[in-house]
């Protein structure tokens, strides 16, 4: 008896398909709906390696440009926010000073009114 290797080699020998196989394949190719000419042209166009690299370069450029634009936009927004914050602080400071002035004036008026109550003659004088 032959060793298993030889048995398998003999068992698994290539076999030709039934007669007319190639014709049946060609008939199926003819029957299959072919891609429209425009799609075929686009596919052929894209298979050029130069175009593939150009497409990669275009994508890289687009991503880089988008990144730069976004960064600049963020910087602008940050600057606007800082300016608005500074203005708000200034406004608060001014308001605070005005309130202080008003309070001091009110205190002075109150003190004078108390003095008049204690010593009505001074008002008369």
């Amino acid at each position, binding site marked *: *008896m032959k*060793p*298993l*290797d030889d*048995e*398998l*080699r*003999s*068992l*698994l*020998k*290539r*076999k*030709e*398909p*039934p007669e007319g*196989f*190639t014709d*049946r*394949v*060609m008939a*199926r*190719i003819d029957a*299959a709906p072919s891609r429209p000419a425009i799609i075929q042209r686009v*596919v*052929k166009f894209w*298979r050029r390696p130069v175009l593939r690299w150009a497409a990669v370069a275009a994508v890289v450029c687009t991503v880089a440009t988008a990144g730069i634009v976004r960064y600049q936009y963020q910087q602008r927004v940050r600057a606007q926010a800082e300016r608005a914050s500074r203005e708000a602080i200034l406004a608060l400071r001014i308001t605070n000073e005005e309130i202080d002035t008003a309070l001091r004036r009110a205190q002075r008026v109150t003190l004078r009114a108390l003095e008049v109550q204690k010593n009505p003659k001074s008002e008369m004088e």
Partner: protein
Amino acid sequence: MSNAAVETVDDALARCADGDRSAFGEIVREHQAMVYSLALHFLRSPSMAEDLAQDVFLELYRNLGSIKSAAHLRFWLRKVACHRSIDRMRRRQPDGVLSLEDVPEPAAAEHTRDPLLEEKLWRLVATLPDKPRMAVILRYQEDMELHEIAEVMGISINTVKSSMMRALALLRAKLARSMGGVKV
């Protein structure tokens, strides 16, 4: 594949790229036995094997632009035939009903081998799991090296090595048992 055959296929590929349809017929004729046999040995059904082989060549026709050389074509056909066969086997109904076309033809007169042993071996090969079975078919039908099998099947060379060893040990053991302890 001889140098002349490689040149013929390269020439046919170039003519296909120029739109010569008859060149594709030459490519089919050159590789039909390989694709059909891979499917036939794996599926064990002549009608399913022919259908699958036709599908593979149809897919090749649609992807001809990506084929770079005769060697690349052979690799591509083996890879697609191998993966489509495994997919089809997984989709196949488990009832195992065969059509009349699927009944194997009687042994040819030129056969000098023991038909009983051959049938036994067929059955044993068919009991192997899908991937080890395909590895065995690629090894013994196509005479491929382990690294080539790994590339075609998209698995590691160690997986191919171990599954081949297991498959052959299993076949040896089962064959010996079925023949009453004769060593093979």
